[in-house]
């Protein structure tokens, strides 16, 4: 077994263990109802996490996703409900705005050499601020299109529901895997994250790839906002505060190195489902309080970076040596040396 698959394997083992434990406590985890709900409830931030996977593999970071999701929701609600726009036209416009926003952040990061951490932090404030400017109150969307989408459900024999959001999540997952492993863009992203200097010397279009990665991530965050808008049927400027943390945690738990250069989209998917399982379990078990999810997430983060450390440092515990041990110390995510 190649050592680079070990983090992925660990992610999968943790998910299996978590799910089997939940199943042993509540038999409903064996039904399609829970599976359908897991996919539906975690669809929107799972989509954002898949975008973040690309950013982190490229050696960057994006703190603005939660705010972009909130802005998307408010913008769609305002345009569709208050101004009577056509939903599909609104979504198209919003996706263009979101992609341009990400591309702009990429431009500032690449050409003006300001750390991604700081640029996307400004992006966080800007997008959240813009959604407050649009509306500070929750706007309910009533539109026949939204009704149609929410009726678009495949019902399993045991009344489990496979919803539109879940389908979008799986489609983004498949497209994300394809993009990461079977396209030139995907290879460029890995090369950039592995070693930006070498990538430049090898002729990787560094500028285009950096800008593309942030544009892609904001596109997916916008798409996540639309999916959330469709399932919540409302827009709220205070939604998804701090979501970027959960998203980054999921990417790390999914086995992606925060230094960049290594990681799998499918790992992020499994991590999202793991955190979703814990959330569902805590909801079903009334005696446990909701803040345990944060503590457990922190613990999982610790366990996974610890594992990567062991793999990467060549301490020989697993008898493998990973090339990530040779990452020069000045390379930190989002803090690219100029």
């Amino acid at each position, binding site marked *: 077994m190649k050592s680079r698959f070990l983090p992925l394997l660990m992610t999968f083992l943790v998910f299996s263990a978590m799910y089997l434990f939940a199943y042993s406590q509540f038999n409903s985890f064996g039904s399609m109802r829970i599976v359908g709900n897991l996919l539906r409830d975690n669809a929107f931030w799972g989509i954002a996490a898949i975008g973040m996977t690309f950013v982190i593999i490229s050696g960057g970071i994006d703190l603005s996703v939660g705010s972009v999701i909130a802005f998307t929701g408010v913008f769609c609600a305002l345009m569709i409900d208050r101004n009577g726009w056509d939903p599909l036209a609104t979504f198209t416009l919003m996706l263009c705005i979101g992609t341009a926003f990400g591309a702009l952040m990429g431009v*500032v990061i690449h050409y003006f050499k300001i750390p991604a951490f700081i640029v996307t932090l*400004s992006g966080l*404030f*800007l997008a959240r601020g813009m959604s407050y400017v649009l509306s500070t109150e929750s706007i309910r969307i009533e539109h026949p299109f939204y009704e149609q989408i929410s009726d678009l459900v495949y019902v399993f024999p045991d009344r489990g529901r496979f919803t539109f959001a879940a389908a979008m999540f799986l489609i983004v997952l498949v497209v994300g895997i394809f993009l990461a492993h079977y396209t030139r863009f995907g290879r460029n992203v890995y090369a950039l994250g592995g070693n930006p200097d070498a990538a430049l010397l090898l002729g990787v279009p560094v500028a285009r790839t950096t800008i593309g990665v942030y544009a892609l991530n904001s596109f997916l965050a916008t798409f996540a906002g639309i999916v959330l808008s469709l399932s919540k049927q409302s827009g709220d400027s205070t939604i998804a505060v701090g979501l970027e943390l959960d998203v980054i*945690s999921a990417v790390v738990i999914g086995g992606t190195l*925060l230094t960049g250069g290594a990681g799998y989209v499918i790992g992020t998917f499994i991590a999202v489902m793991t955190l979703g399982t814990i959330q569902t379990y805590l909801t079903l078990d009334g005696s446990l309080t909701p803040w345990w*999810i944060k503590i457990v*997430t*922190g613990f999982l983060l610790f366990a996974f970076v610890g594992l990567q450390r062991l793999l990467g440092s060549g301490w020989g515990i697993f008898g493998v040596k990973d090339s990530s041990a040779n990452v020069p110390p000045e390379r930190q995510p989002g803090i690219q040396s100029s």
Partner: protein
Amino acid sequence: MSLKENSVQPDASRWGLVRRGISSGGGSRLLWTVVALLVILLVNRAISPTFFDLRLVNDRLIGSTINILDNAAPFVLLAIGMTLVIATKGIDLSVGAVMAISAATAVMLIRNYEAGATEFYYQPGFVMLIALAVGAICGLWNGLLVAFFNLQPIIATLILMVAGRGVAQLITNGQSPTFTDETLAFIGRGVVFGVPFPVFLAIGVLIVVTLLVRRTALGLFIEAVGVNDRASYYTGLQASLIKLSVYMLSGVLAALAGLIVAGEVKSADPHTAGLYSELDAILAVVIGGTSLLGGRFYLAQSALGVLIIQALLVGLYVSSLHPTTNLVVKAIVVLAVLLLQSPEFRQFATQPFRRTT
């Protein structure tokens, strides 16, 4: 002249960076930061003619400038710790969560005292010490992960950032407990010579830390670790120990900031106390001119960076702009300040005005 200095190619050697930092960077950066602060203050004055007015009400100075200082105090404490951490090429994302933990600890303990517990460890003074110790433990955890397990600082502190708020909620059982004890409240809302006590606290810590790192070789050690930790280790520095101590200091100062915030509102809200304050602190440090790549650090400029952000926020408050635009203006001003500091951007912006040679 400074433009020419800064337009040196970015891939100049690290030594070149250090030399430039010593010869010119420090001075001109200080100038830019002070100018930015003055511009914002003058804009505020233009918007609101009474901006610099101070009144004495009940032995307490009232005015926008005092508000700026008062609001800035906890962030200055965070920024001091953050500056030293960033100087070692680290970052501390957990300070907001540590604020919440320390505030929660202090308030839960002081409630026992108010309920009549007489044990010495429930006394207000001791409670504060315990809260600071909790901050030190949080910093120790971060420092151990960074210095001895060689985790990247951004992930090592992300763990506590995620889990810490959960721990704070665990301590208060998800509630936002309140207290009435005046000794603990004094640290956040006390007034000395008409000026809020936190202002003295922040200035005091700033002076002590500055003396500590500039009058001893400690500051040089920290910069050496930040420039090249392996080289500093080979020259005989205890690089790991230095990293560990800056994270611990950051934790203690975050705990102190948490006490100030708890004292101000006489309660501890584990959900919102210190939320996003780590991001504001990092912003202030970067505005102050300390590079996220480590090395040279500027404590006083970081404090000025905090004042810039707070002057902006107070200015927005006194302006007739709708409060919903606060975040947008903040994002734009911060980005403008950062772009002005970027040599690449200055070159780009001045390109059309230069003669081609």
